[in-house]
């Protein structure tokens, strides 16, 4: 059993496995995306308050959700990597980070693109906005730390530790920021201004979220393969592999 | 007693050594020799548990050193390339505090005695900053007069020492071994140390 696990957790065997999985996830992602986009633009009705602007929700919310989910998954892999000292899981954590950062960035930008017409301001210090911004900082910290350590083993373990410390803090931060926001009633605007969640809208958002999920998996697998190639450059299996490909 | 089985060390993408076997018993002395960069320091750091072996494992009294770390570390005295001195503390303070925080029972007087033994009592109250290269090294080495540790791991202890101090240190090593201690050391000079059993491990890159 455990042998089996280690067999698949060794880069050499995981590399081709990942290669096989990528296309399927890509396919799923596109399928969900098409369905989701169809609902969000063709089916979902115009919102009587916000007009068409609300359609941003179909990228904004899934992106926001993903930004959080990915961070947690990342921390999970990191913990596994620290516990079992398994190279693969550390690599997975490292592979997820950039995608998570991108989604966070998207949540921020689409959010403020929504905010401009709704509130008339690109940015307000609202609780959720602020905590999303902080989440972006957490991602960037993780990436920067790993980027600035050259010894891969140390980079893995340092990053993993940071991710763990991060997840412990995320809820505290989120809570404190919400609280801070309620203290300053003055300017806080509630996103409740957003339309009622009609069933179709919820479906649309869910489909888009699923699309993002599948996309994330595919991309993470692609990145982890790159990392393996770069890390194990001098190992035999990479050499054989690279001799195999023509270019 | 110290046993290491099938140690391998990978630095960056270079395999420094593999299948290194060590068995060291009471009174045993081991030289680790090799050219610059052959991996001597790395091996010593590995034996201390500072560096995780790529393969293989290390046992102290039949138990993995990670498992009975407390027992192992209280028997271990390691002095590396770095002297671990604070420029702003005097020689005496440096010695006293490093010994204390290593868990040895020492008094100011004992520390002073150690400095005297290695012949730098005159510098006892000088800040480490102003000491000469060799004097710094000797302050670090003075800890060997204070520990009750069974296992000494010394990385080029003789570097930068003058002839007199070299022989003083050699004598101390001999004494330690005679009392059933063990020592592992690297060096590029050859120095005569008398021990019941002397082994030599040669690393070649």
């Amino acid at each position, binding site marked *: 059993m455990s042998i089996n696990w280690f067999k698949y957790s060794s880069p050499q065997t995981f590399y081709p496995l990942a290669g096989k999985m990528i296309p399927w996830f890509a396919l799923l992602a596109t399928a969900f995306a098409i369905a989701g986009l169809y609902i969000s*633009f*063709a089916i979902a*009705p*115009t919102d009587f308050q916000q*007009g*068409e*602007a609300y*359609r*941003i929700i179909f*990228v*904004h919310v899934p*992106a926001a959700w993903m930004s959080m989910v990915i961070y947690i998954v990342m921390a999970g892999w990191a913990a596994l990597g620290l516990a079992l000292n398994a190279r693969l899981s550390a690599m997975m954590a490292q592979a997820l980070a*950039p*995608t998570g950062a*991108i989604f966070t*960035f*998207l949540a921020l*930008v*689409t959010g403020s*693109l*929504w905010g*401009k*017409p709704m509130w008339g301001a690109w940015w307000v210090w609202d609780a959720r906005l602020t905590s999303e911004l902080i989440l972006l900082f957490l991602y960037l910290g993780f990436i920067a730390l790993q980027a600035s350590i050259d010894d891969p083993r140390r980079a893995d373990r340092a990053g993993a530790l940071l991710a763990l410390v991060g997840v412990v803090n995320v809820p505290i931060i989120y809570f404190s920021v919400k609280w801070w926001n309620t203290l300053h009633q003055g300017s806080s605007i509630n996103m409740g201004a957003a339309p009622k969640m009609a069933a179709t809208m919820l479906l649309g958002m869910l489909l888009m979220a699923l699309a993002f999920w599948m*996309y994330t998996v595919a*991309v993470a697998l*692609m*990145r982890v*393969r*790159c990392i393996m*190639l*770069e890390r194990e*450059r*001098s190992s035999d299996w*990479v*050499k*054989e*592999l*690279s*001799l195999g*490909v023509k*270019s | 007693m110290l046993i290491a089985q099938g140690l391998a060390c990978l630095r960056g993408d270079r395999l420094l050594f593999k299948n290194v076997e060590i068995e060291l018993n009471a009174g045993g002395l081991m030289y680790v020799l090799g050219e610059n960069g052959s991996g001597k320091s790395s091996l010593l750091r590995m034996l201390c548990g500072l560096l995780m072996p790529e393969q293989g494992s290390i046992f102290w009294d039949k138990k993995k050193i990670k498992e009975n770390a407390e027992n192992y570390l209280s028997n271990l005295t390691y002095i590396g390339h770095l002297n671990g001195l604070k420029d702003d503390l005097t020689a005496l303070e440096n010695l006293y505090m490093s010994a204390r925080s290593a868990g040895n029972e020492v008094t100011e007087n004992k520390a002073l005695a150690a400095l005297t033994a290695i012949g730098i009592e005159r510098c006892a109250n000088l800040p480490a900053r102003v000491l000469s290269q060799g004097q710094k090294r000797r302050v670090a080495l003075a800890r060997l007069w204070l520990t009750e540790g069974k296992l000494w791991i010394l990385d080029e202890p003789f570097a930068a020492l003058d002839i007199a101090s070299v022989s003083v240190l050699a004598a101390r090593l001999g004494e330690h071994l005679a009392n059933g201690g063990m020592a592992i050391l690297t060096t590029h000079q050859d120095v005569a140390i008398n021990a019941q059993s002397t082994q030599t491990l040669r690393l070649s890159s």
Partner: protein
Amino acid sequence: MQWASWSAFFYMGGYAFYVWFSFGLTALCVIWEVLSLRKRSIEALRLSKILAQG
């Protein structure tokens, strides 16, 4: 289907800029990420090939 015409669709009830910018940016990020990863893996393979040969 509540779009009178394609132009209405693109006009997005006056919010064209915000809506299309959001979706467009998302698409851009996705495409960029995928392409850059392609490049990266090809580069990695090329390098290790050189290593393997030389």
